[in-house]
């Protein structure tokens, strides 16, 4: 495979286009997404301060000798003040108090206010893999693969005329995606991850192909984009939509709250989805061993975790058919 655009392309462009000026060279480099700076003109080094270099008295255009000549010693450097050639190494600088620098008191610890800098929490998915995870999770299966030979043979065996070629189902990106975001208390620690996944979904599926709705408990109660008080009843999307749930499906139930949805409520929701032929995937920020077994058979659930890869998602257990 050809490597990414590099300085080789720049040289190629210079060779073919023969830019005459630095401005032209910079413009060509910019088109290639590269940074090119004209080479610096070498300047005559100024004499060091307090130093006088003995001028080289050799003639500029000396004739080339017929035999090798022994190397001449370089011109000696003479300090103007001291009159002594060479240089000296100074010792540690003395402070006014007479103590050396390494004996000074250590700096104070940072004050608590200065230390309270927000910690950069690592996202739940490895950023490098997120695009692959999301595009695999949102793929829907359509008959766009190679010919379905088994079906073809059976049709021919029955003496039926083939008007179109039956094809195997392959995964392809869903045309529309609806992201259902659980904004309940138990999902608060994952709010930043939810925002990040929504951005990734929009990147992969296209901004206009993604709808985002918020809910608490389960989407069956209400879901909307504005304030919670005005959320309307949830309306199921068309069957060509892939629903992506960002929820803990009630696992991380905070104490003293009764807003979480139980397993039965989630089962009703999943049953409705499957009845309408809507594909659904749930990103759950808890390990599989904590998922309610009854729900794991209803949804395609994906562990929302650093160890998750596109391969895990591809082979995640699919729900039983309705």
């Amino acid at each position, binding site marked *: *495979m*050809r490597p*990414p*655009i590099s300085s080789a*392309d720049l040289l*190629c*462009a210079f*060779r*073919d*286009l*023969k*830019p*005459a*000026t630095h*401005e*032209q060279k910079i*413009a*060509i480099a910019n*088109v*290639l*997404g590269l940074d090119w700076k004209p080479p610096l003109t070498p300047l005559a080094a100024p004499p060091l301060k307090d130093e006088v270099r003995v001028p080289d008295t050799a003639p500029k255009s000396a004739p080339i000798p017929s035999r090798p000549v022994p190397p001449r010693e370089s011109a000696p450097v003479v300090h103007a003040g001291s009159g002594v050639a060479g240089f000296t190494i100074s010792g540690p600088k003395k402070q006014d108090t007479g103590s050396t620098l390494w004996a000074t008191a250590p700096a104070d610890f940072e004050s608590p206010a200065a230390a309270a800098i927000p910690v950069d929490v690592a996202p739940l998915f490895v950023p490098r893999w997120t*695009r692959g995870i999301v*595009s695999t999770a949102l793929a829907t299966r*359509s008959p*766009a693969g190679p*010919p379905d030979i088994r079906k*073809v043979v059976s049709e*021919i065996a029955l003496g039926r005329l*083939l008007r*179109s*070629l039956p094809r195997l189902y392959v995964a*392809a*990106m869903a*045309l529309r995606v609806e992201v259902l975001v659980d904004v309940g208390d138990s999902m608060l620690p994952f709010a930043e991850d939810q925002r990040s996944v929504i951005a990734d979904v929009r*990147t*992969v*599926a*296209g*901004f*206009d*192909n*993604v*709808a*985002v*709705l918020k809910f608490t408990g389960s989407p069956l109660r209400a879901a909307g*984009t504005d304030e919670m008080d005005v959320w309307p009843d949830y309306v199921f999307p068309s069957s060509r939509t892939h629903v992506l749930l960002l929820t803990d499906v009630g696992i991380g139930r905070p104490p003293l709250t009764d807003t979480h949805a139980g397993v039965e409520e989630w089962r009703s929701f999943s049953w409705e989805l499957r009845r309408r032929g809507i594909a659904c995937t749930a990103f759950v920020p808890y390990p599989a061993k904590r998922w309610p077994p009854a729900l794991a058979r209803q949804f395609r659930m994906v562990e929302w975790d650093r160890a998750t890869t596109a391969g895990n998602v591809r082979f995640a257990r699919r729900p039983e058919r309705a």
Partner: protein
Amino acid sequence: MMPAKTLSSNFNPPDAYHTGDAGDARADSRTGDVYVFNDRIRLAIQVALATGRPLLVRGDSGWGKSSLAAASARYLKWEFHEAVITSRTQARDLEWNIDLLMRLNDAQARKLRADWRQYVSPGVLWRALDPEGASAQQKLYNQTRGAGSDSRPAQSAGKRAVVLLDEIDKADPDVPNNLLVTLGSLEFQVEETGQMVRAVKENSPLVFITTNEERELPAAFLRRCIELRLPALPTDDRDGKLRKALLVDIVLQHWLRHPSGAVTREYLERAAEILIPPPASGEEAVVPSPAEFKDTILALVDRYGSDDAPDKDLKELAQMTFTKRRPARG
């Protein structure tokens, strides 16, 4: 920007390049008869030609992304091949297609050809990389299909080609990455027949890929493309004044050769002022594309001739065409 015309390249079209006369069947149907080039566009194409890299053209609809490829092909006098990408397009569709249904029917009718090549038809990339091979393959496929069924144009052997892969952002996210090898090494192998399709270096095609940026493209793909954005304007053009001025300039260039000859810069500026109202406070101006603006002016000229259209009509027109309600983004 330094003038790209001063570089040593065979791609130096004038600012207003006439792609053909209105009655010329070969004229680009999208641009009409003019494509308005500038130094940025010229330089990007010159560099793409020099490096053999695909040119990824970004930007909003109607600003001349697709017609740039057609106009460039016409200027270079190269063949032009175009594929509009859809959500169902796979990378292989651009390389070759295999008519499995015909092969099956032949098998049922005991007419099966042993040679798979007879069921293979070349895709746009095959036509661009190896025009002679593609022409021979197409002929073979047509023979299999039966005489008189050739609906494809004849290939010009040995002629270089411009390829347009239009709206690649509509494709499945894997498609751009699946094209990397073919676009990078300018070769691919037909799986079923083992044929190698390869471009001669001197005849390598110029590939244009357009995106409306509905979906972000993979980084590996972007690193191998030269990028050009149309139009390139400062980001602080919230009131739309710069885009409006550019719009008038571009449409005026188109009009200089229009048979009506009735449109002047003043006419276009007045129309732009009324048709494109200033934005509400805090909002960004909604400026139409040159294609939309040109169609509107054409409608005005047809209806009112060189007379000024009444302001009321213009405002109604603006509401119907430009200031349409944008869908809310959740």
